[in-house]
């Protein structure tokens, strides 16, 4: 349905079926309309249909924004395709608007010629006023560019459930709430999707309330049948299976993948997992997920505050657990002192920051990458710690394993950056073979006996290669030792106020982190033509939009290379050399240029930064435009450059 799509039309007995390569649908409604659930279900149906997909849920910032207002609109966008895709799509091809507010908020995004499904029951004067519409958009010409289907979603639902209400099985209010299932049924029909999977899911979800299960299933079927029987829908669409690498797939969100990655890391390390956490948007789902996984030996501690969450993780690490704390920017600010302490203790603690818009409370439900410098530098004093970032929802799983590997091998706190976009959006995830996951038990061994020459325990006698100190657990006789935040002497860890020693220890703490970089596998550059002269550098969740943009440019014969960083501290040692190979280096970030500033300072390479912080991820079309503008003729490649020089 997108401009890049070349669909073929097949004429069926009743109507035409259009074959598409990809489509973008956005479901939008009031927070109470169940849009996230509707989107989740359509996502699952798309996954089961074999599509590649990326989702982008967008929540209202206020939990109790007045119903029917633009502030209360919740939406869910899904991009699904028959080929590999990397973003949730730029502009939707189809918008389902459950009320005027949803329409007002989102109609500007809909592609010209796009399909609009409106819940016509909600377009009365009061609702229009609440949505801030001066005139009815259905009548004032605002929708002329779209194919509009006005459907009485509420009244159709009530009619379908008339008997259920009459018999007293459900209330009228319950019946009206099923309208999201009617909408889902209609969209499922339009995209030739069977409803059986969702029916089974509804039966399970409402197992304790069979009357509600019945009602939801009826509404779902009514929506499907409505599409089938009315002549309004002259086309249906089909998006074929994507050619994904062989394997078993499921959809997974970033927060879910983070939780599973932590459990996997603990199991592969042979350690109990301890999570200390305090509720915060958008990180709380990791706490919820892990609280359900106690059978993996997971302990979750909901602390009194962020500081206590961090402190409890330090205590658990001292006791020999794989210790984790999860939060978002404002919470990380509070944990900072504790992270500094763990840096001095040299204990492995994983600190997950699901970044959101800042500063201060900022935009809690929106995504941003603006905590990079906080992750790198927010402790007092010189306190370097490793920082890694996840590139996609599924990649959060691998990122947790990598963070645990670093923390356990080098005995250091590690910051893991994801963001609100990764946390909540979903993609198909190839389920890894558990046996091939890295064996983290090889990364460390608890000290069992004193290591000093005179039979004493030296808690800071280091491994000459990794500079890691011994991890000696309480409970082990002969290893009694004291850790503190004060500067320490080598080996013994005794307090030392000596200036020269402090300088040496500071240098050592930097060296410890730098050595992690030296042992990383080579940094991969995506440069298929091999002679690109333009390099796009990104980190974290910009991977998808950058990849999609590069793909579009290459389809157009342009030459562009891409490198996406996972390791941000230490920065991968290969990066500088790679950047020097390209005439133009472009770095898009959802912040005001944090990594660009850092890389420019460290390499003196004239990196061009592109920055936007509107709470939404980059669009691939936006990056195509940016790269084209910044790189100019450089996109012709190095060969062209050489020709020009000659």
């Amino acid at each position, binding site marked *: 349905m997108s401009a890049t799509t070349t669909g073929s039309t097949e004429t069926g007995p009743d109507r035409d079926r259009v074959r598409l390569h990809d489509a973008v649908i956005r479901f939008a409604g009031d927070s109470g309309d169940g849009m996230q659930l509707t989107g989740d279900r359509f996502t699952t149906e798309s996954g089961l249909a074999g599509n590649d997909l990326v989702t982008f849920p967008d929540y209202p910032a206020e939990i109790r924004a007045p119903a029917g207002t633009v502030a209360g609109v919740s939406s869910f966008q899904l991009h699904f395709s028959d080929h590999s895709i990397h973003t949730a799509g730029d502009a939707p091809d189809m918008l389902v608007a459950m009320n005027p507010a949803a329409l007002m908020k989102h109609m500007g995004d809909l592609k010209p010629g796009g399909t609009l499904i409106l819940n016509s029951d909600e377009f009365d004067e009061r609702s229009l006023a609440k949505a801030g519409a001066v005139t009815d958009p259905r009548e004032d010409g605002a929708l002329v560019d779209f194919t509009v289907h006005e459907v009485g979603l509420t009244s159709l639902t009530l009619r379908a459930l008339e008997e259920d209400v009459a018999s007293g099985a459900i209330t009228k209010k319950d019946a009206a709430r099923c309208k999201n299932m009617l909408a889902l049924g209609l969209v499922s029909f339009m995209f030739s999707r069977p409803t059986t999977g969702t029916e089974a899911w509804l039966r399970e979800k409402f197992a304790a309330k069979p009357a509600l299960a019945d009602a939801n299933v009826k509404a779902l079927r009514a929506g499907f049948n409505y599409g089938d029987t009315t002549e309004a829908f002259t086309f249906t669409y089909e998006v074929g299976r994507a050619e994904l690498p062989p394997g078993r797939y499921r959809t997974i969100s970033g927060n879910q993948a983070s939780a599973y990655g932590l459990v996997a890391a603990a199991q592969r390390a042979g350690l109990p997992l*301890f999570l200390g956490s305090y509720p915060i948007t958008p990180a709380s789902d990791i706490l919820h997920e892990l609280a359900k996984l106690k059978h993996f*030996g997971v*302990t979750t501690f909901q602390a009194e505050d962020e500081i206590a969450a961090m402190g409890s993780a330090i205590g658990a690490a001292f006791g020999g657990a794989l210790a984790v704390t999860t939060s978002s920017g404002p919470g990380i600010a509070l944990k900072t002192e504790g992270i500094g302490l763990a840096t001095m203790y040299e204990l492995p603690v994983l600190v997950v920051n699901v970044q959101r818009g800042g500063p201060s409370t900022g935009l809690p439900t929106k995504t941003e990458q603006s905590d990079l410098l906080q992750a790198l530098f927010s402790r007092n004093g010189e306190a370097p710690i490793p920082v890694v970032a996840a590139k996609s929802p599924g990649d959060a799983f691998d990122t947790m394993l990598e963070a645990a590997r670093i923390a356990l091998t080098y005995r250091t706190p590690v910051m893991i950056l994801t963001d609100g976009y990764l946390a909540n959006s979903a993609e198909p995830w190839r389920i*890894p073979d558990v046996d091939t996951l890295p064996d983290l038990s090889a990364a460390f061994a608890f000290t069992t006996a004193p290591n000093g020459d005179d039979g004493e325990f030296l808690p800071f006698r280091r491994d000459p290669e990794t500079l890691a100190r011994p991890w000696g657990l309480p409970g*082990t006789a002969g290893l009694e030792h004291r850790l503190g*935040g004060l500067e320490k002497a080598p080996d013994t860890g005794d307090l030392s106020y000596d200036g020269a020693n402090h300088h040496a220890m500071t240098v050592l703490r930097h060296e410890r982190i730098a050595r992690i970089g030296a042992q990383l596998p080579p940094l991969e550059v995506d440069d298929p033509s091999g002679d690109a002269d333009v390099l796009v550098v990104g980190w974290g969740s910009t991977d998808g939009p950058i990849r999609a943009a590069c793909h579009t440019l290459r389809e157009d014969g342009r030459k562009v290379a891409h490198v996406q960083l996972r390791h941000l501290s230490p920065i991968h040692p290969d990066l500088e050399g790679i950047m020097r190979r390209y005439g133009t280096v472009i770095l898009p970030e959802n912040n005001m240029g944090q990594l660009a500033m850092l890389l420019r300072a460290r390499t003196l390479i004239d990196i061009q930064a592109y920055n936007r912080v509107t709470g939404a991820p980059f669009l691939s079309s936006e990056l195509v435009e940016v790269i084209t503008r910044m790189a100019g003729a450089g996109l012709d490649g190095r060969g062209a450059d050489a020709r020009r020089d000659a």
Partner: protein
Amino acid sequence: MSATDTTTTPLTRKDFASDREVRWCPGCGDYAILATIQTLLAEVGARPESTVFVSGIGCSSRFPYYMDTFGLHTIHGRAPTIATGLATSRPDLDVWVVTGDGDGLSIGGNHLLHALRRNVNLNILLFNNEIYGLTKGQYSPTSPLGAVHKSTPMGSVDRPLNPVSLALGAEATFVARSIDADRKHLMETLTAAHAHRGTSFVEIYQNCVVFNDDAFIQVTGRDTKQHNQIRLTQGEPIVFGPDGEHAVVADADGSMSVVPTAEAGDRIVVHDATREDPTTAFALSRLAPTPDRPTPFGVFRDVDAPVYDDLVRDQVARATAAKDADLRALLDAGNVWDVA
């Protein structure tokens, strides 16, 4: 992860003393507390490898450095949080928290409150000297109104906190008060605290000779102490004074007061720390909001209640028993599809 050393050789006080030179000011009350705890651990048969002292920041928080056990000198006010994480993941350890009036009640007040109400298996010792010693003499949350210190040249206008009242308000399951100058009482009180399962909270009046000398003179002075120390003994009527001439009586409004024993009649309160309801213990703690008048010492409250970390571990144990830790099954769940 249990102790690898199961030896039962009796240990002495010296076995719990580290080789670190003790750096408190000469005459500081901390010395007596340190010696008492080292003796106590030897007497109760504690093992150094299974004992952990966790402290915050302040004079008292140097305590772990002087113990030849495991120890964590942490950050200001946060010791209860770190101790909670440790105690929750390691039931085999004996975890002590050493804090002060500034560390535990000011910057770390929130953490102390939550450790107390959760009933984590910790021994929390609050050394109260009514002053910030390490930072050289500012008033603290327990300094009395009018206290003149470096940051209050015209006298403090902050209403002080009573640590025992605070702990009882949080329904801590073991709450006691003792004093550095009385080794015997301190030993008895700390022994009872150590024997309690759950959070035990002990306020210890500790004299800071340098910045707040004689803050507790009313309860320690040769002339005043017998009239101002109310010793609580389980099951005994609360009377005090050289000849037992003062008595604590319950008043009609639920509070308590001190009257001459001769006039008390049958109103004398019989001390019962095991009472489930903390109301009486609280009333007792309000007899002396600050220790400038007859002040109770001993165990205010000692009740059995579910212990937080036991409950947490029990949930994990039940979950582990009920379901396999099958990572493959976890990942391979929900709506899956195969791509050939």
